[in-house]
């Protein structure tokens, strides 16, 4: 008999019942809630007179709309304020634990779940946000859902799902100096394409993935959705278990031993079969920079803006032309010759302590380039902010001319006041370079924290491998 994949094991452990057509009712262990995709779900519950199935499975925070400055004065935008207040009220009415805007534990929902130990191996974790795949780094089945499904989970603690296919992406070998988890996942998205993982759950494996810290693993799983896969995941090992020890929502000492033994069964068996497998040589990956309006439009820092005339497929050629026009780039331009206007270091992809340390190491003792109008560092949570400040990282950033902000999603999607103006070009550690994502008419280049920081100092993209 063939072995089981990590995804098979996670799926089977959560089947409540299977329907004749092969769909299954899947139990959800953890539901993370934020202000943008939940109000209509709570409204739906009220209209139908339904209550929560299991209050303690939910954890909420406000992250998308919250300001990153002057937070004590509240939210200036009345529409944003109403949405955040609606979350506060819903959590109060339904008894859900919420880390409100001024709670020191508040932060980006995908940062605080693991930070609190609310994300655990072997769990199913859902949230009305596509970057829920982040939590798969812990050997969990984690995926984003829409508002109808949010309401469904609140009311039933289950989702009706069809099993995805299994894909494994093995990244093997030593990770070169200057290359990070972000570069690895951008290279993967570039290789399989933004729809390459549609219909699949992706397991990231191989020696390079195993060598990553939990922070790095979260960065990789976070962007599984940019390759089209709802879920990304990584097998449990010592690093996973060690990361969770002592966290507030992690198992208490009397259950720890039992839990960690159970967790260690979450890996793909020898001989497990995958519907699709990809191997990538870590040694061949260089720091990545996106040039277009889809995360798959990515090249190495030593590369050039590609020429649509060399693309055979007509639809792809049209997409490339449209992207170059939007990005105001000319084919053949060296990536290192692209000058930037702003820097954004943050988001659920890259706002953890390791990311901030990497960026700070690059800017220490240097100054922002004159052509860079704004560089902002937005920690992923209040606890990360405090940790960074205790290490003096805030001082390193502010001395270099970067702004040190309060935690939230911020300019990853520009729902709050942080945004690009039309035509502005940004080196961003976020996850999407879609048209208008960081502000109408804004131009986003996705990079790692070190690459974003270096671009801020140089005023244009530079190769961090030769940074001094």
């Amino acid at each position, binding site marked *: 008999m063939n072995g089981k994949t990590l995804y098979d094991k996670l799926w089977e452990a959560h089947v409540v*019942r299977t329907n004749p057509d092969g769909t299954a*009712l899947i*139990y959800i*262990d953890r539901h993370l809630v934020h202000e*943008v*995709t939940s*109000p*209509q779900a709570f*409204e739906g519950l009220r209209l*139908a007179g*339904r209550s929560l199935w*299991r209050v*303690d499975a939910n954890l909420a925070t406000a992250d998308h*709309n919250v300001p990153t400055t002057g937070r004590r004065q509240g939210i200036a935008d009345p*529409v944003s304020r*109403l*949405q955040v207040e609606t979350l506060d009220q819903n959590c109060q009415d339904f008894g859900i634990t919420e880390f409100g805007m001024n709670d020191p534990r508040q932060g980006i929902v995908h940062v605080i779940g693991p930070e609190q130990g609310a994300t*655990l191996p072997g769990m199913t974790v859902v949230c*009305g*946000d*596509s970057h829920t795949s982040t939590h798969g780094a812990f050997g969990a089945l984690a995926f*984003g*859902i*829409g*508002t*109808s*499904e949010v*309401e*469904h989970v609140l*009311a*039933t*603690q*289950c989702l*009706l799902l069809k099993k*995805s296919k299994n894909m494994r992406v093995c990244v093997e070998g030593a990770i070169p100096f200057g290359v990070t988890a972000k570069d690895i996942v951008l290279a993967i998205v570039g290789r399989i394409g*933004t*729809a390459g993982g*549609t219909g699949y759950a992706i397991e990231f494996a191989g020696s390079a993935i195993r060598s990553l810290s939990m922070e790095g693993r979260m960065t990789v799983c976070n962007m599984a959705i940019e390759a*089209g*896969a*709802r879920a990304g995941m990584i097998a449990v090992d010592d690093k996973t278990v060690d990361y969770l020890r002592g966290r507030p929502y992690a198992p*208490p000492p009397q*259950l720890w031993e*039992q*839990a960690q033994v*159970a967790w260690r069964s979450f890996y793909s068996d020898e001989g497990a079969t995958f519907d699709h497998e990809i191997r990538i040589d870590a040694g061949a990956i260089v720091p990545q920079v996106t040039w277009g309006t889809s995360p798959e439009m990515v090249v190495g820092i030593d590369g050039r803006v590609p020429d649509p005339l060399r693309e055979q497929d007509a*639809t*792809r050629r*049209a*997409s490339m032309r*449209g992207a170059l026009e939007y990005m105001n780039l000319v084919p053949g331009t060296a990536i290192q010759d692209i000058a930037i206007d702003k820097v954004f270091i943050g988001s659920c992809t890259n706002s953890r302590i390791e990311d901030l340390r990497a960026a700070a190491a690059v800017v220490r003792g240097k100054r922002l380039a004159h052509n860079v109008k704004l560089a902002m560092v937005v920690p992923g949570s209040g606890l990360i902010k405090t940790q960074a400040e205790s290490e003096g990282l805030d001082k390193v950033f502010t001395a270099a001319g970067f702004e040190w902000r309060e935690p939230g999603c911020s300019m990853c*999607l520009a*729902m709050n006041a942080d945004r690009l103006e039309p035509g502005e070009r940004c080196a961003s550690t976020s996850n*999407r370079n*879609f*048209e*208008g*994502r960081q502000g*109408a*008419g804004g131009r986003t280049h996705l990079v790692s924290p070190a690459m974003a920081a270096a671009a801020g100092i140089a005023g244009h993209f530079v190769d961090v491998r030769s940074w001094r």
Partner: protein
Amino acid sequence: MQKFTTLTGIAAPMDRANVDTDAIIPKQYLKSIKRSGFGPNLFDSWRYLDEGEPGMDHGRRRLNPDFVLNQPRYAGASILLARANFGCGSSREHAPWALMDYGFRVIIAPSYADIFYQNSLKNGLLPVVLEEAAVQQLFEGVYAQEGYRLSVDLDRQTITTPSGQVIHFDIDPFRKHCLVNGLDDIGLTLKHVDDIRAYEARRHKEAPWLFR
């Protein structure tokens, strides 16, 4: 959920691949706590020449004359022809809400992003998957003929073109059943309360740290 059985309507072409949910409904409109009213802001940044914000009178904004849905020939369209990987990006259900609020009830494309596809089905928006070549043929038909109307029959799983050509499509039988009858998923799941309780009891024994 709104039922879907049959529909005959004007088809409009959205001729680009990887149309993401940020393009379908930009983030500033996600601040709404309602389910309705997103139609005027569907494809907002392509559709208007100015930058839109919630609370504006969108009827007074300057339309982009080059944007396909602003062309008079596509007025009142209820079927959207699209390219591969339609609806990629975020999980925002505001995307199908906006498409439906605008008046679309059917999308026809070679493929969709997973979350968008599920979100559409849960709102009575029918996402039809056809082979690339069949979609291409429909695009050519729409471009060639003003007032190009398609008839969609979910029960028979067919699309009929103005020339009478019938194209078959596949759809998951359960989802079809829900769409045709306008069924609410939560109501269906709550028929299995005993199964959920039994699972929880078992799980509580196996993994007590998950319940605290």
